[in-house]
């Protein structure tokens, strides 16, 4: 009942907001990204400083204050800022009653293995747009992104002559361990949209990442491996003979891609696809397709 009332309230408020700048507090980074894409500057953002360091795009204006941490946003600060809407991740669902004393609350679906993370982000974006009365702008943004993705897809097709390589995206965590972005991770969704296959089959996990020993990467015997930069011990690892012997390194099916946030909202796909495509375009067009030379 309360949810329904809130929805009605939001619908009623929507037309008013479409004209004036809405006062929205974003307590998750996906929501921040989506607000910015809807041309709404958030009133305050949780961990705003870290957003500027790690997510980077879309750019958060310098004047937007931090609302405290994403784990424990500062309630008293929120109360003082008097937002008209607070967007929260599911992690904060339990303090929703407290937040509702300050302003109406909208919950965002987060990352989970129960649903398609991309679809969830897309719906969250459209929900937010409806609440703010900016559906037309939202549709326009999504179409622009799809057009952009299509352009990258064509450039990749042209570069690889129609036979695209399979791709696995990793993030190195120490010289002996690496995270693999598996099914339902945003990098994997970006690969799908670029028309690329995964080079390594993995079981699904809530956040789409699995940590494996570095030697497990040796089993990736086809396709390209992209690693998300930066990695502090890069020099040490890349010089080691074991790394040099990894099939994808020996056969030059390996490239770095610029630092990109991998748990973002729907538009992080575009940035991910861009970074991946740029890395892939730098590789020679035959990489990832040549059958692996027999080892034994």
């Amino acid at each position, binding site marked *: 009942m309360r949810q329904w009332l809130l929805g009605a309230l939001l619908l009623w408020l929507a037309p008013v907001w479409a004209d004036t700048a809405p006062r929205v507090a974003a307590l998750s980074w996906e929501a921040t990204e989506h607000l910015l894409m809807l041309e709404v500057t958030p009133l305050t953002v949780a961990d705003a400083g870290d957003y500027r360091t790690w997510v980077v795009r879309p750019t958060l204006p310098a004047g937007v204050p931090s609302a405290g*941490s994403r784990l424990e946003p500062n309630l008293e600060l929120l109360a003082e800022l008097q937002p008209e809407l607070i967007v929260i991740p599911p992690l904060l669902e339990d303090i929703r009653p407290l937040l509702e004393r300050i302003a109406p609350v909208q919950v965002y679906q987060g990352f*989970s293995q129960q649903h398609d993370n991309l679809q969830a982000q897309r719906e969250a974006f459209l929900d937010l747009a409806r609440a703010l009365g900016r559906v037309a702008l939202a549709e326009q943004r999504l179409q622009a992104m799809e057009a952009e993705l299509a352009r990258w897809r064509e450039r990749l097709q042209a570069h690889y002559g129609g036979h695209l390589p399979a791709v696995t995206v990793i993030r190195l*965590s120490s010289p002996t361990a690496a995270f693999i972005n598996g099914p339902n991770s945003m990098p994997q969704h970006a690969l799908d949209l670029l028309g690329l296959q995964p080079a390594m089959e993995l079981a699904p996990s809530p956040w789409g990442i699995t*940590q494996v020993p570095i030697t497990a990467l040796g089993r990736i015997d086809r396709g390209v491996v992209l690693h998300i930069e930066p990695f502090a011990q890069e020099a040490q690892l890349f010089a080691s003979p*074991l790394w040099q012997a990894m099939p994808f390194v020996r056969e030059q099916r390996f490239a770095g891609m610029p630092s990109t946030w991998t748990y973002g909202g729907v538009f992080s796909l575009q940035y991910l696809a861009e970074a991946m495509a740029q890395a892939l375009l730098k590789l020679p067009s035959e990489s990832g397709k040549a059958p692996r030379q027999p080892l034994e």
Partner: protein
Amino acid sequence: MAAVSAPSRHVLTLLALLPLALLHLWLAADLDPFELWAMLGAAEQSFERLQLQLSALPRLSMALLVGAALGLSGSLLQQITQNRLVSPMTIGASSGAWLGLVLATLLVPAFAASHGQWAALGGALLAVGLVLLIAGRSGIGGLPLVLGGMAMNLLLGALAAGLVLINNQYTQGLFVWGAGDLAQIDWHWVQWLWPKLLLAVPLLILAPRPLSLLQLGGDAAQARGLALWPVMLVLFLAALWLCAVSITAVGLIGFIGLLTPNLAKMLGARTARDELSYSALLGALLLLATDALALLANQLSGQLVPSGAAAALIGAPVLLWLARRHLAAEDPHGLRLPAGAERFGWRGALWLGLLAGLALVLALGLARGVEGWRLQWPSALVWSLRWPRVLTAASAGAGLAIAGLLLQRLLRNPLASPDILGLSAGATLAVMLALTWFGGALLGAVAPLAAFIGCLSVLALLMLLGRRHQYSPALMALLGISLGALLNAALQFVLAKGSSDSFALLGWLAGSTYRATPAQALWLTLGVLLFGALALLFQRALTLIGIGDGVAASRGLDVPRLRLALLVLVALLCALVTSLLGPVAFLGLLAPHIAVMLGARRVAPQLLLAAALGALLMLLADWAGRTLIFPLQIPVGIVASVLCGGYFVFLLIRGRLA
């Protein structure tokens, strides 16, 4: 087994090592023995062959080297201190190393990436030095050393957790090291480590003589011409060196150093030389077996399972089992209260009242906002957000102080506190399990219940294990240590998975009033008042048990039953506080101490004053946590742990140096 002679025991162990090494290679290189054989003969350079040469074989060597070093180090430490509970882990070396590395990573990332080992080494040495200073000459052989080590572990752990929590994006890479992993990509670390372990050779030759003299007791050893202190110091440093370089190379691996010497003794190692050498051998065997299990888990689950986690999973229960067999029941001396004022007069009460008033004004009225500092009565909305936190903090402080006082009187140990019992660790472990099952979204709702169940399970375990030993202090401490280490390993493992859920957990672990609802705050206050009143009813029993069990029994008290009842009271208090707030270390230890130092030396006044002080400290800690790094907030548990822990260490060291 005890009947087997020393040489044949060594040979048998060596023989067991061989198949284990083969199994380890099989798992690490993903090759069965036949493929392995074929691989060794093959001339071709394939990835599998390189994996065998550069990953599996170095890992095997590493397991053997580190296992032997930790076993030797543990045996040496135990023989010097004549204390079966001592190991690098229990005297603070591991947590010191961990904090050192976290600090280095945050302050000088480039240096940490290339020379992190020196930060770890420095941290370990500093932490152990402090613990030794705390325990002092008389405490080395007994529980004080181990309790001091636990205190240090808690303090440094809180500091490191706070740093990681505030800088969560920057510290990800540390977690694999923190969880202790033997994985290798070349011979670099083996080559780094082995020359540094050569120290073991002169140790094995020279150490047995002074150690066997030490077995006769300090005085007897000196009478036979042993320069006691210099020799002990040198041996101690050697043991620390062995452990610190191992930690540096592979990360935190607990329990091996603690279990191995105890097992060696059980299997019949009697002389100092035999125990040293057999501990080294057995340590290698144990770590190899543990690491093989980690590898197996790795293959079955398809994701990284750090060796340290496996070691803790096996080590904690084995340690408890050992403890059951080998503990002396009674700690002979009565409780010695710290020195201080003789009585708590009206002047003290006046000061306390003033301070409490000031703390309340601070906690309720002084806050930071968009425009900076402000002193004003909060608006209705802000008041409704603020008072549950303030009330929760104050009640929790009072509750922990009462629990700490009860424990110190019951166990006759001024260093006892709720964290020592392992109750907080049990609660935290339960929350961690809940997190892996239900996911981060439900954490806030499930955590209190899980924590409560965790506390009560530990209590049940305590009763089960403790009945035979009349709930002896050593057993309690041991349970706390085992659970604490198990928790630490599990925590590092969860953190190493690197998802955002990990940080939600870390946030809860930090002990925060953030999520307290008005109803919870009121229930907590009611509960603490009720249990506090109950504790006051037991004041005569507490006074008498504090003097000694014999004294208490001679006055007609049913000591075992009373102690059990009071322990249940402590557990309920801890469960109540921990389930709402998460663990808060040191407060329960310190508040009763300060109360005594202010002159409240009898049970009833000490209890009331300690409760008031606990509430006051938590009020201040909560206020500091809310305002210090505004708009970010430091969880009250971390502020309180670090403040009280720091003060506590200061007190102990001052007392020692005076």
